[in-house]
């Protein structure tokens, strides 16, 4: 019963979506306020119905209702509750339902919190948002319906892919989708502005917080996915330049560029047309990502099942939305008024530089990801473009970007003084040089580029703090003054510094793990030991342990450093009989910000066990840096909230004088 209700709710959401896609636009055209307001209620109701459908599907999973084909395919009655819940989106149909759920969450939030948006803009935004929603409702209902029933009812489910039976599944997809889909708001605003034919700095102020929120989630989602791949695939790698990973990286790069160009538009009313284009491109890349992952074009752990009709359907959505929006852009953009002027050396100039490098880096990833697909489609030749390609193209561009990063926030708007800024960054240069020298002294020349990577990371970290230090007059006056000034600084300044600091931390981790990681692959018998980077691991023995829906074979290793026991590592292999499949559970031992990583191979005929041991110094900084970036985003967001929809007319005198931060 609940299944049919869920299905029905989804159909109702589609009906509402169709109304919302048309009515507000007519309202905006005829200046009919009532029609425009209609979108508010339909957006909220769409969210309600999709949420109902989602809860209905979750209910089927939790109660292990195997009469539902989707549950039968992807669940098992013995699975722990958390995996029953997360396997709702651990399959194609359910993950698309999550996709539209998040889409309607954002739509409802615009409807609920966008009270100060101009009526026509809001009507257009909600209408465009609904076009996207309708396309995906149709996709779900016609090709990927999660509510189909089975008859006869099977006795037991076929279980979720064991690789997905991990807490990572509970967190990674929702975060990633919050990011992907969050960019739809920027897209809808861009299309609405093009339809309106009007755009100004206020537009950027409305769009910025949504973009920032989406970016924050996407950053965390990507980092989470990377950590999950790191500990679950058993290779100790944190980024494989896999097309599916690239599919999430591309919207991130474009979104980061959008975030920065929107600042220029908000503060200086320049780069308008470019910002609109970026908003369209960012969401287009999210759609392309969805297409790559969901269509079955790529085979990976993410493509749950391939069905050609789905691929074609998503391709049609892709062509309609990307083609349509770019045509609209080509038609309407020339009508938008030109923005302000600025010198090449200025804050705006630095942000343009940022945009240039981010979009170019995004382009190289795009080429590397889609070239093999295009080549196969046109010539039939199959190639693989691996990590070396991306390291050689994406790497240099990103290094240049990182080097310029500390300069940006220190440059003045309109016309900056590059030598003055360089002078102010002297201390940061010093820190970077000391880091290079110290790394050379400690590690020698075993990885020649690594000390420079470390130096760059320290330069950026120090450089991002320079702005804060100067603004709070730290080291120049009494600490109390600095504290007061720090409290008075706009949150967005903190956000910038923290986020820039975070990316440098990530760089530090990448350089460390890639350059000085050690690795041993060998086979061991019980009581034998292996030593690696100053750690001694002794193999104590193998044991069988039963899990809820698997049998696991656990190897126990005692880890000693300088003769002292520092920990016990228990890597295991889990055997899932329902799918006759084995998963590898690596054991991790965190030492400071480095990690010992141990994963099991096969047992050899002579009773010894194949193992892989890695020591990865600084590796935790990769994800820690992403968390710091996310904090930066959240800090900036908390500042924006005060000013969302900012241009309040100063008609009535404020009852309380509010501190308006000077920026």
């Amino acid at each position: 019963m609940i299944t049919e209700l869920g299905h029905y709710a989804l159909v109702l959401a589609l009906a509402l979506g169709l109304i919302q896609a048309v009515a507000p636009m007519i309202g905006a055209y005829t200046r009919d306020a009532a029609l425009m307001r209609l979108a508010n209620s339909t957006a909220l109701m769409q969210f309600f119905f999709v949420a109902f459908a989602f809860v209905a599907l979750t209910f089927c999973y939790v109660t292990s209702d195997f009469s539902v084909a989707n549950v039968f395919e992807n669940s098992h009655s013995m699975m722990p509750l958390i995996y029953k819940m997360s396997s709702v989106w651990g399959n194609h149909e359910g993950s698309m339902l999550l996709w539209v759920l998040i889409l309607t969450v954002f739509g409802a939030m615009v409807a609920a919190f966008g009270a100060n948006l101009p009526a026509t803009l809001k009507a257009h935004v909600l209408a465009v948002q609904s076009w996207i929603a309708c396309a995906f409702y149709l996709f779900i209902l016609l090709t990927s319906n999660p509510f189909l029933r089975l008859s006869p009812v099977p006795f037991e489910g076929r279980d979720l892919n064991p690789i997905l039976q991990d807490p990572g599944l509970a967190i990674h997809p929702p975060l990633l989708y919050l990011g992907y889909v969050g960019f739809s708001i920027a897209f809808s605003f861009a299309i609405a502005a093009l339809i309106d034919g009007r755009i100004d700095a206020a537009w950027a102020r409305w769009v910025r917080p949504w973009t920032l929120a989406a970016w924050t989630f996407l950053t965390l989602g990507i980092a989470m996915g990377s950590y999950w791949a790191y500990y679950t695939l058993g290779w100790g790698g944190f980024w494989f330049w896999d097309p599916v990973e690239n599919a999430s990286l591309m919207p991130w790069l474009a979104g980061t560029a959008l975030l920065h160009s929107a600042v220029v538009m908000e503060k200086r009313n320049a780069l308008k047309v470019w910002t609109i284009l970026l908003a369209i491109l960012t969401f287009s890349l999210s759609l392309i990502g969805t297409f790559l992952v969901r269509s079955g074009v790529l085979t990976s752990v993410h493509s749950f099942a391939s069905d050609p009709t789905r691929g074609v359907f998503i391709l049609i959505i892709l062509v309609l939305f990307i083609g349509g929006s770019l045509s609209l852009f080509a038609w309407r953009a020339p009508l938008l008024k030109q923005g302000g002027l600025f010198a090449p050396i200025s804050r705006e100039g630095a942000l343009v530089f940022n945009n240039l490098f981010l979009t170019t880096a995004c382009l190289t990833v795009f080429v590397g990801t889609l070239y093999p697909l295009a080549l196969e489609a046109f010539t039939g030749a199959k190639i693989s473009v691996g990590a070396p390609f991306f390291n050689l193209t994406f790497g240099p561009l990103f290094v240049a970007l990182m080097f310029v990063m500390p300069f940006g926030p220190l440059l003045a708007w309109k016309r900056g003084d590059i030598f003055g800024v360089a002078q102010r960054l002297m201390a940061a240069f010093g820190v970077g040089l000391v880091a290079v020298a110290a790394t050379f002294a400690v590690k020698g020349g075993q990885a020649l580029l690594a000390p420079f990577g470390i130096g760059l990371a320290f330069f950026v970290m120090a450089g991002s703090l320079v702005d804060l230090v100067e603004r709070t007059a730290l080291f120049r006056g009494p600490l109390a003054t600095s504290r007061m000034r720090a409290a008075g600084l706009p949150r967005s300044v903190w956000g910038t510094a923290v986020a820039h600091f975070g990316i440098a931390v990530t760089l530090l981790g990448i350089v460390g793990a890639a350059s000085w990681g050690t690795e041993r692959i060998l086979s061991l018998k019980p009581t034998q030991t292996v030593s690696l980077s100053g750690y001694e691991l002794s193999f104590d023995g193998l044991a069988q342990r039963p899990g809820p829906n698997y049998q696991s074979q656990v190897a126990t290793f005692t880890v000693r450093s300088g003769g002292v026991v520092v920990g016990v590592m228990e890597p295991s292999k889990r055997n899932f009989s329902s799918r006759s499949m084995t998963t590898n559970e690596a054991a991790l031992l965190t030492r400071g910000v480095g990690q010992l990583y141990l994963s099991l191979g096969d047992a050899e005929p002579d009773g010894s066990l194949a193992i892989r041991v890695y020591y990865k110094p600084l590796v935790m900084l990769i994800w820690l840096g992403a968390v710091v970036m996310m904090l930066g985003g959240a800090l900036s967001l908390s500042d924006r909230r005060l000013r969302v929809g900012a241009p309040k007319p100063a008609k009535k005198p404020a009852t309380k004088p509010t501190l308006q931060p000077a920026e």
Partner: protein
Amino acid sequence: MTRKQRRLILIGSSLGVLAIAAALVLNSLSDSIVFFNSPTDIAEKHMAVGTRIRVGGLVKPGSVQRGENLNIRFEVTDGKSDVPVRYQGIVPDLFREGQGVVTEGKLEAGGIVADMVLAKHDERYMPREVVDALKKSGRWEEGAGQTSGGTPR
């Protein structure tokens, strides 16, 4: 500076960055892409020894030999031709005889010296490259690797 000059600087520097990126892309594309082949391709094409290639197919039943120090030898087959593969290291969990596999490595006189062996992520699916290789050699049974069983789609 006039608006025109500023725009020229902007466009000039954009083109500059794009040119650098294009140079980087073309340079590394020629160096770092790897072509995918089926065992039959390798038997028929006579490729130069030392070329880096990817091969996909099934692990030939009965061909797996494990040696000392995690050395492993096996043959990849598409039903028509076989290619011997040598590898040192740990093979993936789902590496089994008769199952799909993709390896990447250098082509030597006696087969391939692989530095990467990939199996599938899920027992229900087959790497697409393997499916294509099998289809080409005519050994593919429709639905063999796909989800089976009477579920409505």
